[in-house]
C-alpha cells in the first residue's frame, strides 16, 4: 500500500506527515512525500531569468523533503519526490495516479482563527476532484501512533453502503473498533423517535455491511452505533466524544462525479467542528476497490 503525502515546509506539512505516519503504522503502508513546485510559464515574467530559478527551487524542494523524511520514524518506509505541475492540487492527483496510491494525505491550513479546520485552496481543490480517499490532518496534529478507532459518518443517501463497506474494511484491516455515527440536527426533528429510527437504520446498515466469516464477527463485536443530536451539525459533532487516535470517514456529496470526491455542505460543516482527522472517500470508490482486491488480496482497504 502506498500513501501520497502532500508536504509543504510548514506546520501544515508537519501535520500531514504525522497523520500519514499514524495511518501507515496500522496498515504497514509506505509513504511517498511530495513537494509540488509550480511550472514556470514562459508567458509570465518579463525580464526574469527562469532556468536558474528553477534550479534553486528544486534544490530547496529537495532540502525540504530531507527535513520531511527526517520526521518519519524508521519503521515506516518513506520516499521523497519533487513533482512539477500547473497547480499543486493537480500535481498531487497526478502523483496518486503515478504511484497508484491508496490515499492522499494533506494538512488543513493553519490560519483559521476559531475553527480547527480551514481548508486551503489546494485542499479545497482536492476535496472537489480527487479520485482517491483524501485524509485531512487538523491543525496541530502531532499523534503518530496507529489509529485506535474508526468512525464512519452515515447518512441515508445513496452511496452510504459503499462508504460503510470502506469503513468496515478499514477497521477490520487495522483491527480497531468501528463506530457508526449519525448526526441529527433540530431540522431533522428533535424527538427521541427520530434518534431511535436513525439508530436502528444505522444498525441495520452495519449488519448488512459486515462481511461473513471470522473477520465479520470480529468487527461486529466491536462495532458501535451512536446518534448525536444538536441544534446544528457543529453542535452534534461537539457532543460526541472523540478519541485522540480516531479518524472520521465520510462520503462525497451526491454532486460528485462517479469515483471522485465532492465535499458536500454537511461534510464541510462537520469539518469545521471536528477535532480529529477526516477521510473523505470518493463516491463509488469501494466498487472500484472490490474489483481491484479480487486480483490482489493484500492491496487496498477493501475487505479481505
Amino acid at each position, binding site marked *: 500500500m502506498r500513501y501520497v503525502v502532500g508536504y*509543504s*515546509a*510548514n506546520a501544515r*506539512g508537519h501535520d500531514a506527515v504525522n497523520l500519514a505516519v499514524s495511518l501507515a503504522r496500522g496498515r504497514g503502508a509506505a509513504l511517498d512525500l511530495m513537494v509540488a*513546485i*509550480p*511550472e*514556470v*510559464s*514562459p*508567458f*509570465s*515574467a*518579463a*525580464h*526574469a*531569468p*527562469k*532556468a*536558474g*530559478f*528553477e*534550479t*534553486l*527551487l*528544486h*534544490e*530547496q*524542494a*529537495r532540502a*525540504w*523533503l530531507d527535513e520531511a*523524511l*527526517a520526521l*518519519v520514524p*524508521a519503521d515506516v*518506509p*518513506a*520516499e*521523497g*519526490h*519533487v*513533482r*512539477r505541475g500547473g497547480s499543486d492540487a493537480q500535481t498531487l492527483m497526478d502523483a496518486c495516479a503515478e504511484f497508484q496510491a491508496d490515499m492522499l494525505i494533506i494538512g488543513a491550513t493553519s490560519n483559521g482563527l476559531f475553527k480547527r479546520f480551514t481548508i486551503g485552496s489546494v485542499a479545497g481543490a482536492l476535496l472537489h476532484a480527487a479520485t482517491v480517499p483524501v485524509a485531512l490532518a487538523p491543525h496541530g496534529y502531532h499523534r503518530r501512533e496507529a489509529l485506535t478507532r474508526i468512525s464512519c459518518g452515515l447518512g441515508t443517501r445513496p452511496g452510504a453502503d459503499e462508504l460503510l463497506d470502506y469503513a468496515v474494511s478499514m477497521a477490520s484491516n487495522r483491527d480497531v473498533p468501528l463506530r457508526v455515527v449519525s448526526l441529527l440536527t433540530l431540522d431533522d426533528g428533535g424527538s427521541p423517535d427520530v434518534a431511535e429510527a436513525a439508530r436502528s437504520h444505522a444498525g441495520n446498515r452495519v449488519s448488512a455491511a459486515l462481511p461473513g466469516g471470522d473477520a465479520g464477527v470480529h468487527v461486529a463485536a466491536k462495532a458501535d452505533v451512536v446518534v448525536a443530536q444538536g441544534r446544528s451539525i457543529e453542535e452534534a459533532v461537539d457532543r460526541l466524544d472523540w478519541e485522540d487516535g480516531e479518524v472520521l470517514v465520510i462520503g462525497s456529496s451526491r454532486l460528485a462525479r462517479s469515483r471522485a470526491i465532492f465535499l458536500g455542505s454537511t461534510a464541510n460543516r462537520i469539518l469545521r467542528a471536528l477535532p480529529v482527522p477526516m477521510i473523505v472517500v470518493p463516491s463509488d470508490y469501494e466498487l472500484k476497490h472490490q474489483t481491484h482486491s479480487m486480483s490482489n488480496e493484500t492491496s487496498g482497504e477493501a475487505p479481505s
Partner: protein
Amino acid sequence: MTTEHATSAASQTDHKGISAKGLKAGTVGLIGAVVIGVSCIAPAYTLTAALGPTVSEVGVHLPAIFLVGFIPMLLVAFGYRELNNAMPDAGTSFTWASRAFGPWIGWMGGWGLIAATIIVLSNLAAVAVDFFYLMLAQLFSNPELGELSKNLPLNIATTLVFIALACWISYRGMETTKGVQYVLVAFQLLVLGWFAVAAFSHVANGSAFDATAISPDWFNPFAVDSFSSFAAGVSLSIFIYWGWDVTLTMNEETRNPEKTPGRAATVTVLVIVIIYMTVALSTLAFAGTGDTGLGAGNPDNQGSIFAVLAGPVMGPFAILMSLAILSSSAASLQSTFVSPARTLLSMGHYKALPAKFGRISPTYKSPSYATIAAAIAAAAFYVITRTTSENALWDTITALGMMICFYYGITALACVWFFRAQAFSGAHAFFFKFLAPLLGGVILLVMFFKTAYDSMDPAYGSGSSVAGVGLVFILGMGVILLGVVLMLVMAKLRPEFFKGQVLARGI
C-alpha cells in the same frame, strides 16, 4: 536516518531532468514568442513614459534616436545570449559578472540590475496610477477625477497600494496566463495603431495642434545638436527596447530551438520598430516639438505624453488608450516584480546578501523575503522621488536609462572577458562573444558616464535639483553609492562571497 529512507532512484533521475531546465519543452511557437517579446517591452507604457523625455533631449530627431538606440541593445543582447547559454542562472548579470570579474564588480552588476528593476517598478506603478485616475475621469466624464492623481498624498497612497497589490500577486506566485498575454498585446498594438492613424488624419484635415511636415532630417542621428543630447537620447532609447533580449534567450521552451528564438527576436523588433516609428512620427506631426500647449516639447506633457495627447487625438475613444496603458503597466508591474526578486534570491543563495534573501515560500514556492524587499525598495524610491522632484516620472525614467546602461555595460564586458580564451577560435565566436558585446558594452558605458556627468547640471531632466546638483544625478549616483556601501557592509558580515569562495572566477 535508516536506509529505508533513501530517496528513490526514480526521484534521482527526475531530479536531473528537471534541474537541467524547468520549462515544458516546445510549447511556444513563433507567434507566442513574439507575444512574449512584445509584452516584455510593453510598448504602450514605454512610449508614454519615454517619448516626452526623449523629445526634450533630441527634438524632432526622435525617430533617428529610436533607431540608433536599438544598435547597442542588439550588440549587448548577443553577449547576453552567449552568457545565458553557457551559465543559465537566476542571478544573470550578478552571476556572470562575478564569474568574469570577481565578486566586487559582480556584486555591483547585480545591484545595477536590481536598482533598474526597482526604479522601473516605481515608474510603472506611477504611470498605472495616472492612467487609473484618467480612466475614471473619462469614464464618468468628470475631469476633476483625473486631477486627483496630482494630489500628492493621494497619489503616493494609491501608488503604494498598486505596488503592494502587485507584490502580493507576485508573492502568491500567480502568473499572467497565455490567453491574457495575447489579449493585452493585441489590444496595445491596436490602440497605438489607432492613435497614429487618428493623429495623421487630424494632420490631413488641418485640425492638428501644430501640424509639422515630416522631413528626412528627422531620421538623421548626426543632426542631433550635441553629444550630450545624443547620449541622453540613446540611454533613454535603451529603456524602450529593454526586455527585447528575452526573445533571444528563449530556447527549450520554443517548438524549434534552432530557429524560433532568432526569428521571434527579428519579428518582435520589426513589430516594435514599426509601432514606435508610426507613433513617434504621428506624435511629432500632430503636436510638434513646441513647449506650449499640447506640444511634445512642453515639460508638463513629458512625464506621460499619452495622458495629454490621447484626448485631443482620439476624442471619446481616448479611454481605450487609458485602458491599454493601465492594463499593460499593471501586467508589467506584476511580472517585473519577479526579476529583482529572483536576482535578490540568487544573491542570497550565493551568500552575497543576508541568507534571508534566499528564502523561498513553502506555500507559494516564490522568493518570499526578496519579493517583499523589492516592494519596499520600490515604494521608498517612489516616495523619495515624488517628494523631491517636480516631475517624478520624467526623472525616474532618465535615471532608469542610466542604470540600464550601467548594468548592461558591465554584463556585456563580462561576456567579452569571460569568453576571452575563445574569442579568436572562429568567426562566430569572434563576432558574438567578443566584437558585438565589446562594442555594445563600451557604447553603453560611455553613455552611462556621459549622462551621469551631464546630469549634475541642475537644469538636467525636469530641472529638479538638490543643493545645486541635478536630481537625476543624485538619484542615479545615490543608488549606485548605496550599492557600494551595502556591498562593503556585506563584505564585513559575510566575507566568504567576497573572498571568491562561493562563485569561482573563470570558466
